[in-house]
């Protein structure tokens, strides 16, 4: 299974687009927002937590349909399903690879973009922590959505529609964590909820996603 993770990472590096696309999208969103809402730093710093989280979420959404689609088209998924690795493990590794190529760069880039949006310095740590805790859940939920739609010709739009409501709790707790951090309030509850969502999705959704993959392969 480590072999699968390292292969996916190698593919992402060689294709070149893996790391760049989501990150570029994240950058574009955060750079465009000040042009849209005006340059007042007070306004920007108030909406910064939400913008950063929405940007990260959309950047993540952008690459979801590639989690399984490429392997489905070239037949790798059939072969993996008959290989001596559990399909649940395949799903978990695919989600992990997606997180490393999409989520992790967002986490690392977020403080820089936070500065652009005039985010309160006190909230920087919470932003990184929140994205670090929450983005794995985004990848895992996305992998579930991708598993549901893998057999479809143009599943991208449907995938977004399916995943959107599933992303709501993560987004709420993530943005709330940063907002509370910026205001100097107690942050334990949203941080714990984010961690709980990530742990629960990583523990349970691989089974649902593997079940969906089996249905789509048959």
């Amino acid at each position, binding site marked *: 299974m*480590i*072999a*699968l993770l390292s*292969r996916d990472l*190698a*593919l992402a590096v*060689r*294709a070149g687009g893996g790391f760049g696309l989501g990150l570029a999208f994240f950058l574009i969103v955060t750079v465009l927002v000040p042009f849209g809402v005006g340059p007042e730093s007070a306004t920007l710093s108030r909406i910064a937590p939400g913008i950063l989280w929405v940007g990260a979420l959309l950047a993540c959404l952008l690459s979801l349909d590639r989690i399984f689609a490429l*392997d489905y*088209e*070239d*037949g*790798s998924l*059939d*072969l*993996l*399903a*008959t*290989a*001596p*690795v559990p399909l649940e493990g395949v799903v978990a590794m695919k989600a992990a690879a997606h997180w490393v190529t999409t989520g992790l760069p967002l986490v690392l880039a977020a403080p820089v973009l936070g500065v652009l949006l005039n985010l309160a310095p006190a909230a920087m740590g919470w932003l990184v922590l929140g994205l670090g805790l929450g983005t794995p859940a985004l990848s895992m939920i996305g992998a579930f959505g991708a598993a549901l739609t893998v057999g479809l010709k143009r599943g991208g739009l449907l995938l977004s529609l399916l995943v959107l409501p599933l992303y709501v709790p993560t987004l709420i707790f993530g943005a709330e964590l940063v907002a509370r951090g910026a205001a100097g309030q107690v942050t334990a509850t949203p941080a714990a909820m984010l961690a709980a969502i990530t742990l629960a999705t990583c523990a349970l959704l691989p089974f649902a996603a593997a079940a969906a993959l089996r249905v789509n*392969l*048959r």
Partner: protein
Amino acid sequence: MELTVSDLACARGGIPVLEAVSFALRPGEALLLRGPNGIGKTTLLRTLAGLQPALAGTASAPPEAIAYAAHADGLKATLSVAENLTFWARIFGTSGIDAALAAFDLGDLAGRQAQNLSAGQKRRLGLARLLVTGRPIWILDEPTVSLDVASVTLFGQAVRAHLAGGGMALIATHIDPGFDVAELDLTRFRAAPQRLDDFDEAFA
């Protein structure tokens, strides 16, 4: 280990295509599946490989004993030949890809990216994957597509070496593989169209 298929029925898209398929394969034996397009060769092979459930009947070999090769080779364009093979060797928990490379004459191409291979070379790489799985039963769907004469000979040698080592092979193909082997025509197992599923009578 022996592959005994008895009274197997399988469906494509919810519609039964084959029924009462029965045959047996002992170690060292191979069987060619024949039949016109659409008769259900691929469906039967996918059912045996455990990718879809059988409607009825049993196959004695568990999917864990089966190495399945489909129309698509599952190659990654940006990985080299050696990297593609090594990946599957690690997934199947085996080591050493040199024998597989040699068997399909891929040694000189080991460092080349899969996207720069010809169709026939890709097919050979896909077939070389079978050797690194270390599994006794090969289930092959049109393995000789886009292979030239020399490559078909290589393929024949690889299958015979596998059989000599106590392996088994079930091959769906339209062409002559170049070695002596039993054949099974699937036409006589075609599912009767008027057959009604006991539960679904209002649907069919």
